[in-house]
């Protein structure tokens, strides 16, 4: 071995292998904790983003009324709140190249069957939009006339409706043409408990021909959300505020950011284990220096410079750090994989760059902590008075 100082450090680590391993275990635990928490964060963010991305690809445009919107679903329309046909066309012109644009009417109204009455959300959609947006039906087909409607699965189940069932919306009797598959919560419309009628029927029942409660945009690429939102805002609200754009990707990004904050906090808590390891390494290095005072005296007396003594102890701390960090990294892959499988239920994002980058990061932190812990003991060893050191037993 070329560097005799390194060779001596390596031998000392080997000779005191049990002590060295115990010190390294501290670092290993710290590295596993930090890497696992980091990877959990990345995987959790990925999974949450996945779950929310079906919501996040939608923009909702409503008429500006000066009232702040609550979000999370369409507004109850009044004639003043509606978007005009020309506004719809403008939106179509701006956003058409980014995705599918459709107008939607909505109102909350009573539906009746015999003596039973329910207060239900009623949506008005044209047939093309129905076929595009509500493209999965569990039963039946799309309306063939203004008197046939689609209903949500919960509405059907709760009220015992099937394809062919008849009831009345407002003053008009209608027949169930199909039952929509469950869509869950969405920014554009929540159809699970709703009745979807044709736009013609909607305007004949509630007025507002060639008007829309809202215009929805289903984006081809979720990353265009801000661009489209900004373009609509800058072109349509240039002179006066006409429309309000709700960008659901911001909500998703806010949720993802909250998940990241939570996992960052957990990572910081996990880092405490590395501090414990640092104390342990400091203690072991101090013991090593104390035990080898005489050896330090001999080394100094035969011409070893202070910096070489310092190097020897720093090599020892680094070797322990490398041992702990490498074993920590290997264990992190195994433990992290199992941990994420148990916590999230899938490991889809485990082998991605964003997830695996936590391994070298945790290794680096573990190694640096180890080296920092070794500095003072090494400095103390290097600065021992050689005469005093030679007298030690």
């Amino acid at each position: 071995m070329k560097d005799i100082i390194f060779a001596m450090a390596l031998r000392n680590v080997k000779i005191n292998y049990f002590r060295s391993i115990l010190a390294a275990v501290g670092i290993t635990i710290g590295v596993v904790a930090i890497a696992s928490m980091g990877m959990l964060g990345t995987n959790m963010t990925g999974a949450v983003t996945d779950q929310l991305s079906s919501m996040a690809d939608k923009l909702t445009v409503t008429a500006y009324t000066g009232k702040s919107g609550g979000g999370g679903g369409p507004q109850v329309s009044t004639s003043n709140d509606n978007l005009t046909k020309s506004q719809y066309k403008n939106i179509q012109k701006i956003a058409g190249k980014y995705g599918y644009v459709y107008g939607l009417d909505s109102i909350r109204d009573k539906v009746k069957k015999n003596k039973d009455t329910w207060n239900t959300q009623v949506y008005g959609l044209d047939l093309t939009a129905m076929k595009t947006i509500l493209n999965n039906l569990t039963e039946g087909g799309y309306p063939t006339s203004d008197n046939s409607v689609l209903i949500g699965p919960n509405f059907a189940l709760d009220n015992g409706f099937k394809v062919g069932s008849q009831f009345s919306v407002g003053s008009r009797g209608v027949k169930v043409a199909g039952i929509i598959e469950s869509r869950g919560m969405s920014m554009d419309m929540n159809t699970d408990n709703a009745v979807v009628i044709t736009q013609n029927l909607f305007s004949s029942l509630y007025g507002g021909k060639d008007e829309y409660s809202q215009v929805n945009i289903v984006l081809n690429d979720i990353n265009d959300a801000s661009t489209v939102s900004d373009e609509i805002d800058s072109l349509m609200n240039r002179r006066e505020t006409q429309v309000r754009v709700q960008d659901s990707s911001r909500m998703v990004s806010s949720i993802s950011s909250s998940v990241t904050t939570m996992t960052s906090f957990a990572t910081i808590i996990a880092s405490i284990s590395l501090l414990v390891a640092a104390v342990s390494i400091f203690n072991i290095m101090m013991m090593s220096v104390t035990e080898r005072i005489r050896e330090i005296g001999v080394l100094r007396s035969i011409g070893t410079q202070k910096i070489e003594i310092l190097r020897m102890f720093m090599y020892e701390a680094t070797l322990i750090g490398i041992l702990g960090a490498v074993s920590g990294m290997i264990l992190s892959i195994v433990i992290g994989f199992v941990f994420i499988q148990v916590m999230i239920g899938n490991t889809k994002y485990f082998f991605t760059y964003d997830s695996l980058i936590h391994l070298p990061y945790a290794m680096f932190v573990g190694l640096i902590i180890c080296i920092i812990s070794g500095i003072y003991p090494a400095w103390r060893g290097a600065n021992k008075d050689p005469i005093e050191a030679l007298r030690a037993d």
Partner: protein
Amino acid sequence: MTDEVVSLINLSKIYSLPSGDVIALNNISLQIKKGEFVAIIGPSGSGKSTLLNQLGCMDVPTSGDLKIGDKSVNSMTDQEMTTLRLTTIGFIFQKFNLLPLLSAHENVEYPYTLKYRKRDTTNRITKLLKLVGIDEDLAKHKPNELSGGQQQRVAIARALVNNPMILLCDEPTGNLDSKTGIMVMNILRRLNKKGKTLIIVTHDPAIAEQADRIVTIRDGKIVL
């Protein structure tokens, strides 16, 4: 350039303790010539070890000066004094002080590697060990696998490896039986005859008698 390899000029060493100053060496002047064999004797606490530490550049004087060759220790940094110990002075201790992690061969090679920043490829270590009676098989052993005499011979080889001007010996036979002690002294005398300056601190009159000059220290002063 003089013949003197060591010059102490009015050297004093005073330790400041809470109970008051302790004068370990009091205004000592001493010259040692190249190739000389000097024995330093004196009772316990007389200042022998302090003098040896001064001669070995392990400590700096409180006042006065120490010259090794023509270099004054007073103006040296710790790094320069350490380099002097590596290249100019060979230490031989009573307790051998070999490095326990290294084999006998590596113990001898260690100062060589520090000085030349490379491993020995000239067979110098093996030759030196042979010179002091340690064969290649024995050289592979760690210090704790060697007898006291063998350890001291390895320590002599280590002291010689960088071809120092001065050999400083602190009770070199103190931990050896008489037969091994004689063997070690024979090696040291042989080295002295080849030109090495030999300075031995000893309690043993029989060893002191072999020296060219005996320096007696008492209460921090040279008395003879």
